């Protein structure tokens, strides 16, 4: 074998090894945490924090201890933000950080009409979790704005009397017969996938 051929063979071999290594890396990346597992974990945190805030802060201080009110206009009224507002403020803060996922709180009976399900996955997901009374979650993939997303929908249930009271009495509510434990809407988590 001529020296030039040897060098060429060496380069080809090295390139092949590098490609194999890179392909291994991409496989390792692909075998990372699955979108469903990630979404479930995120939801566990979101749901727990929200339940704690609703029960231990809003319901306790407003309805039981009666020391401070929660108000939609919490800043002007020097009151506590409503649990849904606390949740949305967190969602917007995450969006501002471009954290690699987004979440939102939607409902088929929203107080703010901007929060009605819009995409096919949102519509199907919210109906699914309501029909199953929150016993099962809904998972789908959808393309929005040219990007593919793994979309998970989780039931959002009335965990405290404050939820039911506020939603049933609000002048913009399209539904006035919510009861404790009812599915009032859904949490939608989206994770971009390749």
């Amino acid at each position, binding site marked *: 074998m001529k020296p030039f051929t040897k060098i060429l063979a060496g380069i080809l071999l090295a390139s092949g090894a590098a490609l194999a290594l890179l392909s291994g890396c991409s496989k390792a990346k692909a075998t990372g945490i699955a979108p469903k597992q990630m979404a479930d974990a995120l939801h566990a945190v979101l749901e727990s924090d929200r339940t704690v805030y609703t029960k231990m802060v809003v319901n306790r201080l407003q309805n039981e201890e009666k020391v401070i009110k929660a108000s939609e*206009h919490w800043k002007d009224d020097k009151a506590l933000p409503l649990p849904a507002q606390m949740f949305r403020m967190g969602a917007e803060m995450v969006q501002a950080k471009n954290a690699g996922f987004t979440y939102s709180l939607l409902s088929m009976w929203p107080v703010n009409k901007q929060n009605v399900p819009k995409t096919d996955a949102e519509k199907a997901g919210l109906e699914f979790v309501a029909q199953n009374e929150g016993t099962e979650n809904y998972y789908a993939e959808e393309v929005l704005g040219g990007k593919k997303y793994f979309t998970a929908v989780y039931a959002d249930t009335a965990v405290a009397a404050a939820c039911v009271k506020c939603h049933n009495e609000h002048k913009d509510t399209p539904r006035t017969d919510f009861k404790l434990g009812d599915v009032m809407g859904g949490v939608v988590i989206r994770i971009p996938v390749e």
Partner: protein
Amino acid sequence: MKRRRWLPLTLFGAMFWCVGGLLAFLMRSEEYRHVFLPGATTHGHYQIEMRCDECHTPMMGVKNDACNRCHEQELAAANDTHPLKKFRDPRNADLLENIDALQCATCHREHRPHLTHPMGVTQPPDYCNHCHTSIAEERPSHIGLPFSSCATAGCHNYHDNTALYEDFILKHADQPMVLQRPVRRSLEARAQPPSRSTADARDLPSGVTADQQLIYDWEQSAHARADVGCVDCHQLGKLKAGWVAKPSLESCSRCHDSEAEGFLDSRHGMRMAAGLGPMTPALARLPMRDTAADLTMDCNACHGAHRYDTKAAAAAACRNCHDDEHTRNYDASIHASLWRAEAIGAGEPGTGVSCAACHLPREVHRVEGQDEVRVQHNQNANLRPNEKMLRSVCMDCHGYGFALDALADPALIRTNFRGRPARHLDSIQMVIDRAEAHRKTPDPTPDKP
């Protein structure tokens, strides 16, 4: 023959370097840089248009944080109803295809004077139509209303709706024309006098002398009453070497930090903040008095050195430069008569209405659980009555309904509010009607927890 072949290339190279050199010279020259302006800048930005890099990248793209660096704080304070982050949710992707709400420049394009509406908006006035197409289905009261009327006085703003949401309107709907309470908040001394090694506030370093008139003026000032003396403003370094004959903003900001910050954000100070020379009336687009053309905008331009008369700064100082219709009509206004009455002791303290009462108002800030009154020195926060001043200014003295009607009357604004509003807005009644209809609906939860 060989040399001739190189000739065009050499000429091209020479021309390239000549043109490049000329462009580089023009770009670096403050005097000639304006030749690169693709169109007149808006009223909000023309003062700093020669600092292209304030907004642009080196290749003349728009910097990502160009808008936020100056406007983020005021948008947060206004509880912005359409923050950019809201549109980052992929569920809004379809709306972004209609209008790219992720970019401030979608609605606020610079250098497009022929497209620019009030507030620097370059979208057609019916821009709400892009997302709120079904509003008439949700609110029957809105049937037939054109989308171009959404953002007019008394209904909605894109960013600041702190005075336009339903419950706020309802809460203030039955207020009288004039509220029964003083106008201006009392301004208690906030700044902490600096610690000084010299015993007497009048002490001067050896070799420095002071005019007796200046000393007299200072003796009339709040500085003298607070024991803030000569060296506290004039002495930046130790002994005579650090003596500054004409203290700048740097001296004032050592005690008046929030006022200095507001000034640098304002129309008076934004050139200084951008590293350009101070603003002068000669550089202004608004009508100004010729006699004040070369006055440099710094603290002393309005407050006057040594005497620091806040009453003069609140009205007379403004009219020293400004010469537009609204300013010229101030003297004949009820606001001015109240200001004069207070000045001669005929009016209750705080009932006079100066220029500053509206455009540089005294604001309450909550600091560590205590209310702190500060003068907002960024008058840009209170220049646009309809978009920014209803809640922060007008409602200090006037009932909501009257203020809303007054702001909807452009002629009344020009005459400095001489007379009554020419029209009455429907928006308050729309809110009352909706609340009344809701009140009549049966209680859905009789067994309230």
